[in-house]
Each structure stands twice: as C-alpha cells, then as structure tokens.
C-alpha cells in the first residue's frame, strides 16, 4: 500500500509534466449508456429503417421500423422494440417484433432468431451489426433455422407458395388458420 501511494505520486508527477489537465470528479453516466450513445452516433439506417425514441432521454429503449425495399417483404412496415439493459454490451440488446408476422425466423410472439442476438453475441458487436442482421432477415428469410416451423417448411418446399402466403399475411389475412397483422404501409 505504501508502495502504491508513492508510485501513484510519481505517476501523477509524470502526468503533470506531460501537461495533462485533470478535473477532479467522475461522471455519473452509466457505462451502458455511454456505449449506446456511441453506437447510436455510428448507426447507418439507410432509407429502409427509422428509429423512434418514445422518451428521447432514455436511449436504452427505442423502436426500430424496417420497411424493406426489395425481397418478399417489400412494402411491409415492421416495428421492433429494442430494450438494452445496464449490462450492455456484455448482454445483447433484447429485440422483439410488435406485429404478428409470417416469417420463418420470427415467431408469433415476436421473438427473433438471429444468431448475434443470442449465441453469437459479443461485446465487440454494436447496434449497427444488429440492425444490419435484422434487415437481412427480411431480405433472406432462412428456412434452416426456423422459429416458425410452418413458415420454414413452406419456404423450403414451395418458394412461390411461401411468397404468396407472405403477401396475404402482410395484407392482414389468415394463413393456415392463423390471423396475421396487416403491415402494408
């Protein structure tokens, strides 16, 4: 301890010699918030995505709207709730689709099967990686990792039939006895 104190003084002297200004106390903004602030400023949303912050002061909870401009889900408008906890970036953000949609990788409760939201999440990934992944799900729905099994089978067996079912689900019709939300904008 004595040693630390004397070494600490030396370090400080060295810093002062280098001309570092130091201003006493520490900030009180949490690490998760700092990281989200940084991630948000690096977000590239393009034309197909929009965010909405119900409370602009709370940057840990926001909404992402995706409007794919190509692919089978073109013309739809999909809303996702992003919920980031204080353990971010150790924990991934929680993402949930508000609408009930016909998609092999999104279940009827809105849960999303995207590897980087779960098993492949790493703290070096950022929010941009997540939204790029989400966008990709609408361009290339993946039949081999199904969360909605019927939809996945449909996609695997009959791509054109699946495409038609996606269109009618997006229009608010029922597919195979399940009523879906209208998402056409």
């Amino acid at each position: 301890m004595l040693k630390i104190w004397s070494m600490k003084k030396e370090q400080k002297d060295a810093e002062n010699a280098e001309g570092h200004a130091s201003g006493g106390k520490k900030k009180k903004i949490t690490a998760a918030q700092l990281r989200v602030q940084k991630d948000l400023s690096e977000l590239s949303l393009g034309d197909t995505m929009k965010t909405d912050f119900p409370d602009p002061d709370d940057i840990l909870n926001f909404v992402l709207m995706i409007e794919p401009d190509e692919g089978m889900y073109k013309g739809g408008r999909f809303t996702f709730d992003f919920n980031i906890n204080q353990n971010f970036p150790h924990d991934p953000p929680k993402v949930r689709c508000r609408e009930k949609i016909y998609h092999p990788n999104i279940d009827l409760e809105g849960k999303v099967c995207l590897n980087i939201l779960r098993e492949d999440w790493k703290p070096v990934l950022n929010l941009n990686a997540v939204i790029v992944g989400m966008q990709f799900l609408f361009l290339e729905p993946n039949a081999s990792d199904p969360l909605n099994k019927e939809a996945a089978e449909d996609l695997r067996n009959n791509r054109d039939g699946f495409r038609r079912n996606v269109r009618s689900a997006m229009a608010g019709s029922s597919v195979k006895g399940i009523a879906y939300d209208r998402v056409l904008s």
Partner: protein
Amino acid sequence: MSVATQAPASAASPVDEDARWKYLNHIRQTPGPFTDPASQDEVAMRMFDNFKVLVIGAGGLGCEILKNLAMSRFRDIHVIDMDTIDISNLNRQFLFRKADVGSYKAEVAARFVMNRVKGVSITAHNKTIQEFDLDFYRQFQLVICGLDSIEARRWINSTLVTIAEEGDPDSIKPLIDGGTEGFKGQARVVLPSFTSCIECQLDMHAPRAAVPLCTIASIPRQPEHCIEWAHVIAWDQEKPFPKLDKDDPEHVTWLFNKAAKRADEFGIQGVTYSLTQGTIKNIIPAIASTNAIIAAACCNEAFKLATSSVQCFGFENNYMMYSGNDSIYTYTFNHQKKPDCPVCSDQSRPLDVDPKATLQELLDSLAVRPEAQLKAPSIRAEGKSLYMRAPPQLEEQTRPNLTKTLLELGLADGQYVNVTDKAFNTQFDFTLVFK
C-alpha cells in the same frame, strides 16, 4: 463440531498473541531485496493494526476469504451479502450448517468466524451493495470481491473509480476480485483510476453459453434445450404467473413439468427439477477446491497490499488466471488499461461555460477548443439527451434544445456531460464550470 462448544474452550486458555502471530510477524519483519524499506517502520507496522477491509459476497469464495483474512490477522472486516443460505450451499460454504438454512449468509459467516478466531471483528450487512453510499465505501482501505455476477462487479468497480480522487492517496481503495467457474478461476487487483479496471477487462469474461433459439424451438437434442424451451417459449405463450420468479418453487415446478413433457415427446432423457433450476439460473457447478485456490490468491494479495511486506499485484502484473480443466495451468500478466474505457479512462475535464449561453454556442465552442476539436458532437448529461446528431429521428427530437440556454436545460454547475463524435473512437467527458 458446533460453534457453541468451541467458544468456552478458547476462552479458558488465554491466547499468547506473540506466539499466535509468530510466523506472520516473521514474514512482515524480515525484509527481502524487494521489500519497501518504509514497510518496516513503526508507522507501517501500526497501519496494519487499524486496517479496515470490506468483503463483498459471503458465498463459496466469501467463506474462504473471511476465514483467510481472519487467520491472517485482519481485525476489522465488514461483509456484505444479500443472500440467504440454501441447502445446496452446504457442500462448500463451510461456515454454514444445516440449521442455518434460510438465515443470512453474511450474518452466519461473520458469527462463525468471530467465534472461531478470537480478536477479529466482522460486521455483517444483509443488503445489496447498491444500498450503500459512497461514504460507506470510503471507510475501507481495501475491498475484496467474491461475486458471481458481472453486474455487481461492474457496479463496485465504477463506485471505487468514482471515489478515487486525484491527489488523495487515501481515496484509492484497491479492489481485489476473485472469480471461479468450475475448474477455472481468476484473481486480479485493480488500483482504481490507475490500473486496468473491471470495465477495461470486460471481455475477459466468457460470454454466457446460449443455444440458438431455433434449436430450442424446433429440434431439441438435450434436456437443457427442453428446459430452455419451457423457459423462453412456453412461459411466454401461457404466462402461468404474471412474472417469472426463478426462486419460487411453484414457478420452477411449472417449467419442470413443461420441459419434462417436451422431453418425452422428443424422447430425451434427463430433465430433472434440479437441472431445471440450474439451467434457468445459469448455474455452473462450483468446485470447492477452485474456490479455495482463488480465495487464497486473493487473500495473499490483500495481506501483501496491507503490509507492503512483499511485492504484490498492482502496477505491473495484476491478473492471474487459473485453469484446472486440462491438468493445471496458470498465467499471470499485466492487463493494460483501456484508453477509451468508459469507466476509468481520463477523468472529466473542466469546461468553463456561461450558463446563459445556448447549447448551440456550447457545441460551437467545442469545435474550436484545441483539446476537443469536435466538428459533429453529440452530447448527453446523466439521464438526459441534450443533442444527439444521430439517428435522424433522435436528432429531430433533440434539436429544439440547441436554442435553449444551459440554465433552461436544467444543467447545473459541476454537471457531468459526455460528448461523442462519429469521427473519434473515444468519448470526451467534461464537468461544466459556470462562470
């Protein structure tokens, strides 16, 4: 052997203090080539007598740590743990007996060690660490953690960094952190604001092993997959109780039944109640010997820090990892401070501002300040987005703030603000100084 039968026995025979600490004192009073000469004088000798240490966690590591500290002549120890004793703790948390199940860990552990080791005072706090303020933590010279949660580590780490004041050696409270997971563990020392902190080392924690959601939803292969299905999917669909309480036997039973049924459908063996509990709470089997090794390393560092008798972790090496998975392997190294660590990187700089200036004027001034030179800054205060340049919708929502004055925005003298700029990887912290 019960505590009650030991107490009168030791009370009957008076303890010879010199004989009791003979070897410990020998280590302290026999300087080696690297011993700090100052550690041998009277002041340093006395300092250890009044040393006050805080132990966080009275579980697997905590029991070992409390025992080790008491037997290394630490006399004033506080311990915090909010948990109560569960029957499953008894195999390794050796300060607890069956009759203690349901009692507070901190309280029982403190009582046991005080009964067994005469002359030590242990103050138990049956609370969460977040319930204490900075002044509480300021009273200690050293903090040792035996925690199982990253969140709690990050909290105490940022608290100790906050306490560390420039130019006040007493405010530097070394943090010794132990952690174990099965046969693996680590012991590390943080000198808050001077050496690499827990936040700098966040990526040293192995991420939680997670199974892809689609495996759980469609093709379970292992009993754990069925349990996760009940936990993540079935619970959400049926919501049998308003909120899942992983400690409520009724809730766990519900999940267990669901999981067992699904396991049946897929012909999977091995779903049990205790596996259900372990899986949903992400419990990794704790191994008593790993705890003993890591706690011993932590307490040796504590003793060395407190007495300066021997070289210890600090500015050079500060991290020891231990793995018993394949034979025995340890590696000790210097984990370097992250220059852009959100917790311990450069402390906030004072920024002279006119409280009647608008936010726009403040941001413009950041562009010309030589140390900042931020062309496109976004700025936040605690719990308040002042101006965020991206994403566009947030920019729109915060734009009206630009024409408001700092006073109108509710900012105060001494307020912390954080500034980021897309062009830079780091962030800038300022403390507003009103002129």
